[in-house]
């Protein structure tokens, strides 16, 4: 449904998008993930024909965004980061205007407007001025505007930004309910959102493509050779180095790392050889030595860690903000 090849967007002083390629199949919900300023908005604006790319090719629904923008626009529904609303219009008037603008047949304008108001739960404020709406309602009207002409492709730029948790959930449910009929790309920097809504993730950072895969694959891929964390209480019988030696002798263990101690409690992180699951052996060894095994868990990486790793800020616990905030804002 969407093909992007070697897409770049350069400005006089910086590169917003640098040679990215990906494709999206019909009916997919794809999460477009990256820190602020990674080039998400720029890429979306190119796909919606708001601006032309400097280099590369992008096709939406079979039409090239540069050569046939008019056709592309017919097949795209777009919700920019700030919903494009006219404050002086009422919700119904606004949606009627958008329906006409998107070339909905004259006879269907009214019924389509009704449908999207129902669908996006904003029928109850139909006569209210948009300037008087709460942020949550504005976002809904923004979504209604994007789907009014029943486009094949929906492009949503941070659809949940600035909403409260309840509204975020509602919006996510709404987006999920739109899947199937529409191919959806949504950008976000909130990771749980991707896990909750999307089947596929495209991660970009500083204008470059970092990864594109399904959510499951990304998690397991980064979880290969996964670490095991154990917490052992020796009740004062042994020193840390003895415990470590003992653990290192367990078959299948490749590396044991100290992860802190308090009194006679020790925490170790154990890396096992690829393909081996040493958990059972470790448990037996600890018990055999007469120590107490307080905790044993295999720590597969969360999407968050995958993301931080892929975008170049290092994995270990402290969830530092990615440095990409300094790369400039995608405008």
């Amino acid at each position: 449904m969407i093909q992007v090849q070697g897409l770049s967007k350069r400005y006089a002083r910086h590169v917003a998008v640098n040679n990215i390629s990906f494709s999206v199949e019909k009916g997919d919900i794809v999460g477009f993930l990256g820190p602020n300023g990674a080039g998400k908005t720029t890429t979306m604006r190119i796909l919606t024909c708001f601006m032309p790319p400097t280099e590369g090719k992008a096709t939406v629904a079979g039409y090239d965004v540069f050569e046939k923008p008019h056709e592309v626009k017919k097949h795209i529904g777009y919700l920019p980061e700030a919903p494009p609303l006219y404050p002086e219009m009422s919700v119904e008037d606004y949606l009627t205007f958008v329906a006409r603008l998107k070339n909905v047949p004259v006879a269907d304008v009214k019924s389509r407007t009704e449908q999207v108001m129902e669908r996006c739960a904003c029928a109850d404020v139909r006569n209210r001025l948009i300037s008087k709406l709460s942020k949550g309602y504005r976002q809904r009207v923004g979504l209604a505007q994007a789907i009014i002409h029943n486009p094949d492709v929906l492009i949503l730029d941070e659809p949940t930004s600035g909403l409260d948790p309840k509204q975020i959930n509602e919006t996510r449910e709404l987006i999920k309910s739109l899947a199937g009929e529409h191919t959806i790309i949504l950008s976000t920097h909130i990771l749980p959102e991707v896990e909750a809504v999307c089947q596929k993730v495209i991660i970009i950072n500083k204008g470059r493509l970092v990864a594109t895969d399904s959510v499951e694959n990304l998690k397991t891929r980064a979880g290969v050779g996964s670490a095991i964390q154990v917490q052992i209480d020796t009740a004062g019988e042994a020193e840390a180095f003895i415990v470590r030696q003992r653990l290192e002798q367990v078959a299948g263990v490749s590396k044991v790392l100290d992860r802190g101690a308090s009194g006679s409690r020790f925490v170790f992180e154990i890396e096992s050889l690829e393909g081996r699951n040493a958990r059972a052996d470790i448990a037996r060894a600890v018990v055999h030595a007469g120590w107490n095994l307080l905790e044993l868990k295999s720590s597969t990486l969360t999407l968050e860690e995958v993301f931080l790793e892929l975008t170049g800020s290092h994995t270990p616990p402290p969830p530092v903000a990615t440095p990409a905030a300094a790369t400039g804002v995608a405008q």
Partner: protein
Amino acid sequence: MRNVWTICRRELYAYFVSPIAWVLLTIFAVLSGVFTYIISASFVRASLESQMSGQSFPMNVNEQVIAPLFSNIAVVGLFLIPLISMRLFAEEKRQGTIELLVTSPVHDLEIVLGKWMAAVLMYAALLAVLALDYSFLFIYGNPDWKPVATGFLGAILQGACLLAFGTFISTLTRNQIVAGAIGFALALVLWILNWTTSFGNSDTVQVLNYLSIVSHMDSFSRGVIDTKDLIYYVSMIFLGLFLTARSLESMRWKA
């Protein structure tokens, strides 16, 4: 064409649900009312004097009331027109709604035409107030209607021309005040160009005089449709709208 009308309709909606239209209509009603009163009052006095003096001077409502009224109104127009056109694109850019317009299956030219047409209709609504003033002249006097009709045509053309440039200026900024100020300055320059006629009659002066926007109103308000003036207005409108369309296109490349 359907798209042009869709956009035009929304713009008119925006004018009339916001205070802009009503404020402009009020200002215009007051000014045109005052002008009509002053000019027709002095006309009445002059005709009374001419009757009392025994000699009858030729008196003509068209030449002595309607023509000067049109040229006054043309100047009032110069001041009000930037207020009509300044919001057209500046507001869209500020609100971010421009993203909706340019990502909809609508051609740039349709957006430009729709917005300009709405502005011209808004200006026509102002002139309708003037028509109301004139109706009194028709009730109490017996003016020739043809110069009135051509006068309105001239006023509309002049307005359409300034609005085309105003629309262009509005694409250049996201700040309405800036768009209004530049539009006003441009209108002023186009107006005073013909003052150069007092410096003689060289070729330069003639060119400047031709470019001046107000000088082309005169023949219209006297009931003459001169091709020269018609061509001036139509070509200026084309230029203004062409610049607007190009500016809108360049905005995408710069965005």
